C-alpha cells in the first residue's frame, strides 16, 4: 500500500501498461519532455524512451487520427488531449471515425486505443477549459467512456481501458489530480462497466461520477447526521458500458433516485440514467427522480461563480432533503 495522488496514479497506470506491453505507445502535446501540463506523465519519457513517448504538434486531429491508424494496424496507443474541451477540435475522430470503423467494415477493423484527457471544472479556467464532456462521449455509439474518482480507480480502470479491445475515452478530473488515496502495491487491473457502492444506504440512491463522488459522499454523510436520511452513494465509474444492474438494484432497495452531474444539464448522463430507471423501474420509484446538475450555461471563470455553478455538497444536501420531505 502506498499513498498516491490521482496525478501520480495516472503516471503509474500508464507505466504499468507500457511496461507490460511494448505495443502500448503514448502521444500528446507537451507530454514527453515536459511531463504534461498537469504533470500527469512525468518520467514516462525517461522510462520508455522517445520512440514510445512522443510530443506532438498542436494538431489534435493528427493526434487522434494517428492514434486510430496505429490502433487499426497493431499498436495500442494512448493519446492525450490536454483539456477535454479540445475534443471539439478533433470531434470527427471521436464521433465519426474511431467509433464507427469496426461497424462499417462489418467487423474487419479494430480500434483499441485510449484517449486520456483532463476533464471538468473547479480550476477557474473559464468556459473553454473547464467543461465536463462526458455526455459528448456517451452519446456516440461505439465508444466506451470511463471517469475514475480515486487514484486506485485511475490505475485499475486505465489498465482495463488499455487492455480493452475497443476505443475508450478516459476522463481524468482536473480538480482531482492533487487528491491522494491509498493504492495497493503491484499490478492493478479493474473491470470496465462496474459501478461501485461507495456508501451503502437505504433511503435513496445518489449516483455520481468523478469529482462529484466525494461531494455526493460528503452530502450523504451530512444528510444522515443532520437529517437522518440514509443515502446509498454509487460511483458510476463507467458510463459505457453502464452498470445498469447495480443502479436498478440500488433503486429497487431505496426507491428514490438522485443523480449528481457536472456536465451542463441538457442531455447529460443523468438524463439517460433517469430515463432508464423511469422506464424499467417505474413502479419501484416512490418519488420523482431528480437530477442535480451544473446549470445549462457556459462556465464562468471567477471562483465564487464557478463554485456556485458546479453541484456542491450543500446543494446536494438541500436538494435531496427537500425532495425527500415531499
Amino acid at each position, binding site marked *: 500500500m502506498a499513498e498516491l495522488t490521482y496525478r501520480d496514479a495516472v503516471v503509474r497506470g500508464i507505466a504499468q501498461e507500457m511496461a507490460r506491453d511494448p505495443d502500448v*505507445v503514448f502521444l500528446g502535446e507537451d507530454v514527453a519532455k515536459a511531463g504534461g501540463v498537469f504533470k500527469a506523465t512525468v518520467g514516462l519519457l525517461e522510462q520508455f524512451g522517445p*520512440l*514510445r513517448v*512522443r510530443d*506532438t*504538434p498542436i*494538431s*489534435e*486531429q*493528427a*493526434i*487522434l*487520427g*494517428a*492514434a*486510430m*491508424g*496505429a*490502433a*487499426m*494496424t*497493431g*499498436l495500442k*496507443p494512448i493519446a492525450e488531449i490536454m483539456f477535454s474541451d479540445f475534443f471539439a477540435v478533433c470531434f*470527427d*475522430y471521436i464521433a*465519426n*471515425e474511431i467509433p464507427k*470503423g*469496426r*461497424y*462499417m*467494415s*462489418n*467487423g*474487419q*477493423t*479494430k480500434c*483499441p486505443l485510449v484517449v486520456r484527457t483532463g476533464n471538468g471544472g473547479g480550476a477557474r479556467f473559464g468556459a473553454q477549459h473547464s467543461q465536463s464532456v462526458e455526455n459528448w462521449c456517451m452519446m456516440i*455509439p*461505439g465508444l*466506451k467512456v470511463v471517469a475514475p474518482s480515486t487514484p486506485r480507480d485511475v490505475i485499475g480502470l486505465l489498465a482495463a481501458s488499455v487492455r*480493452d*479491445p*475497443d476505443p475508450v475515452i478516459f476522463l481524468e478530473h482536473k480538480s482531482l489530480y492533487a487528491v491522494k488515496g491509498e493504492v495497493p502495491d503491484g499490478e492493478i487491473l479493474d473491470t470496465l*462497466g462496474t459501478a461501485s457502492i461507495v456508501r451503502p444506504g437505504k433511503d435513496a440512491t445518489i449516483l455520481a461520477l468523478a469529482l462529484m463522488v466525494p461531494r455526493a459522499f460528503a452530502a450523504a454523510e451530512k444528510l444522515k447526521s443532520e437529517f437522518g436520511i440514509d443515502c446509498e452513494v454509487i460511483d458510476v465509474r463507467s458510463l*459505457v*458500458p*453502464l*452498470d*445498469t*444492474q447495480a443502479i436498478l438494484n440500488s433503486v429497487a432497495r431505496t426507491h428514490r433516485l438522485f443523480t449528481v452531474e457536472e456536465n451542463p444539464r441538457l442531455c447529460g448522463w443523468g438524463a439517460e440514467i433517469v430515463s*432508464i430507471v423511469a422506464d424499467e423501474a417505474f413502479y419501484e420509484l416512490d418519488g420523482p427522480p431528480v437530477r442535480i446538475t451544473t446549470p445549462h450555461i457556459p462556465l464562468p471563470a471567477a471562483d465564487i461563480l464557478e463554485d456556485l455553478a458546479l453541484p456542491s455538497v450543500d446543494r446536494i444536501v438541500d436538494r435531496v432533503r427537500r425532495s425527500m420531505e415531499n
Partner: protein
Amino acid sequence: MTKKPTLARVSASSMNDDIGEQLRLRMYRMQVEIRDAEQRAFDLFLQNLVKGTSHLSLGQEAVAVGFACAMKPGDLSFCTYRGHAHTLARGVPIEAVLGELMQRDNGLMRGKGGSMHLTSEKHGVMGSYAIIGAHLPIACGAAWRAQYKGDSDVSVCFFGDGTTNIGAFHEALNFAAVWKLPVVFVCENNLYMEYTPISEVTAVEHPAAGRASAYGLDSIIIDGQDADEVYRAAVSAYEKARAGHGPSLIECKTYRYSGHSRADPAKYRPSGELDKWLKRDPIKIYRERLLQFGVDERVVTEIEAESKRKIDEATEKCKAAPMPSLDILTTDVYADGGWAWRN
C-alpha cells in the same frame, strides 16, 4: 482518333524497361476492369439495383492502378467515398464490391458500410472515409506503427483536390513530415470539389503541389492519365518512404467523366472540357502504347473480353445473392461482436 497523346509516343524497344511487359499487361487489365466495373455500377443505378449514393472514378483509373501496382503486399491503402477504383486495384473481387453497392449479403461489408466505406483489411484496403480529409491523419498513424515496429510497409492515402483546403490535410502533412513517416499522400486533382471548380476556392494554382513546401516537401505534379508515369512516381515515393526519408505529396492531374455522385449530371462543366479530357483517356493512352510496343492486338482484345465476362459473372452473382440478414444490424459495434453498452 488521329492525334496521339504525347505521352504514348514511345518506341517498341522501351517495352522491356523498368516496368516491362507483364506489369504493363496487368496494369492494362486492371484499368479495363475498373472501368467496366464502374460502368456496370452506373447501369445498376439506373435499374435501381444500386441504392444510396455512389461516386465513380471513370477517367481516373490510371491513378488507382499505377499506385496500387507499385505497392507490395502488406502496403496499406486509405481511400475516400470515391474508392471503388482503389479498392479493386488492390485485388478485391469485383463481386464483393458490386455486392456492397447492391447491398447484398455477399458485399464486402454485407451492406453495413455501403459504397462510401469499402474496406478489405486482408487486401490492405484499410477503409474508405467519407468525411473529407479524415483519413490523412489516420494514414499517418498506420505509418507510425510501421516506423515503430520496423515494418517495411508504406501507407498510401488518396484524396481529391478539394480536400487540400480542410484542416486535417494541414495537420496530417505537418505531422507526417515532422515524424518522417512512411506515408504517401496522393492528391487526385480532378479539377472539381463536388460541383465547384477547385480554382475558385483555392489560393494557389496547384492545390496539393502548391502546398508541399509548407511541409518541407518537394512539389510533385504528375500526369494522372498515364499509368506508367503514375507507377514510376509511386515507386520512387514508396522507396523514399521505406528508406526512412519520410512522406511524399503527389498531385495527379486527372478528370472524372461522370458527375460527382449519382445525383449529379455535372452541368457545371464548361462545354468541351469533357471532350478534351476524353482525348486523354487513360485506357486509350495505355492501349495505344501496348500496341506501339508491339503487343498483339488479340491479347489486348482478350483482356477486354475477359473483363466483360468477369463483370457479367459478378453482376449475376450479386443479383442472385440474398439481402443481408437482419440480425447483423447490431453486430460488430464492439469487439465482442455485439452492441451492448449496458448490462
